């Protein structure tokens, strides 16, 4: 592996384990401390409630100057998440700042599950559904949660 692990990553990891965010767990991989296995519980009052979603998070060499790379592994029906699990979230792109952390990123993703934003879509067909027939979209999201995201 390239270089020693920066202290910041060690500290973040320890804090994530010792003082986890409710509904979120982030666990470093056995063989690569920059790769995290993440689990986010679907927020109550959202179509994803009752589901648990697996994500992978990777800290690139330039972290924390560059943003972590995050992707959903569990299938999810959401206007800001595409079929490959990629997430449309500004802080993962041009609004990233080194003052943000793994913890804040995961909190933002959890918030995105509570408040889908079809005006800024990544999955255009899902967003279209969400805009034209929200009730139907929410129903589909619930069905997907039930079918794919059970613990």
């Amino acid at each position, binding site marked *: 592996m390239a270089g020693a692990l920066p202290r910041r990553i060690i500290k973040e990891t320890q804090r994530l384990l010792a003082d986890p965010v409710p509904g979120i767990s982030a666990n470093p991989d056995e063989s690569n401390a920059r790769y995290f296995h993440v689990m986010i519980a679907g927020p109550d009052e959202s179509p994803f409630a009752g589901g648990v979603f697996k994500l992978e998070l990777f800290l690139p060499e330039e972290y924390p100057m560059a943003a972590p790379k995050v992707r959903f592994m569990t299938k999810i029906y959401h206007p800001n998440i595409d079929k490959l699990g990629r997430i449309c979230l500004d802080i993962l792109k041009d609004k990233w700042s080194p*003052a943000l*952390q793994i913890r804040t990123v995961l909190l933002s993703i959890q918030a995105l599950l509570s408040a889908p934003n079809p005006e800024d879509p990544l999955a255009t067909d899902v967003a279209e559904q969400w805009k034209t027939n929200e009730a139907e979209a929410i129903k589909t999201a619930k069905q997907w949660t039930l079918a794919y995201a059970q613990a």
Partner: protein
Amino acid sequence: MAENAEIEALCSIWEDVEVIEDSQKKIIKHKIRSMENEATSASIRIRIEIFEGYPEVEPKIELSMARGISERDFEELKLKVVECVKESLGMPIVDVFQTCCDFLTDRQHFSDLDCSICISPLSNSPIIVTSCDHFLHFSCFSKYLHFSKTEIVKNLQEAQKYDKDKVDQHFYCPICRYNLSNSTEFEREFQKILEFYKKNQKTLKAPRRDSVVNGEDAERNLKIWREQQKRLAKIFEKQKLAGGIIDIEEEKKRLRLISENFNE
């Protein structure tokens, strides 16, 4: 009108105190800094409402945006201010200003705050304070500035000629995104900002404190980690069996097929 003389006194001691008056009350606003009043001074915002009947009727005092002191110190200062108003003999507001200034002066160079970039104690190496009052290590800030510049250059190269105006060429505070540059001539701004903060570095003294993780914590963390690993692996296997895990290669193939058909 007891307060008029006091406000006059206040404004003669402190520069740029903002006073707003309406029929029912007077509002005083100020950013109080420590005695040294340097670029790296700790600061706090104060807002005081004075009502009819002052000083018998207690003024309402709000403190906010504490910079350069810890959360714990901030709480302590709030209590001190309440006490100060109660015990003041003539000019509670002037006394409160002085109390805050003394407190900031006393605590600011013994910071137990962390740098937001490396999340290590600020007292580890020289610090700077941004024009929006955020504390960072100079070395971390400099690294961030260099990285931001490289990004701007990269974005400019990637942008098509006609899109270059759309590339953001400013430098921002990493904590609050306050715009730190005065123009879009980013090469010059970069030098200016770097030079300015280089000149205004300061070293803080650290209060003694325990290391973040001791052996016992480390062991407990390891246990949590093992349990989580097991739990996550189990859930993953279950979801995979149910067809709930995204198959990247499959999805990519499907996307390719769609775009190929589209092109035909």
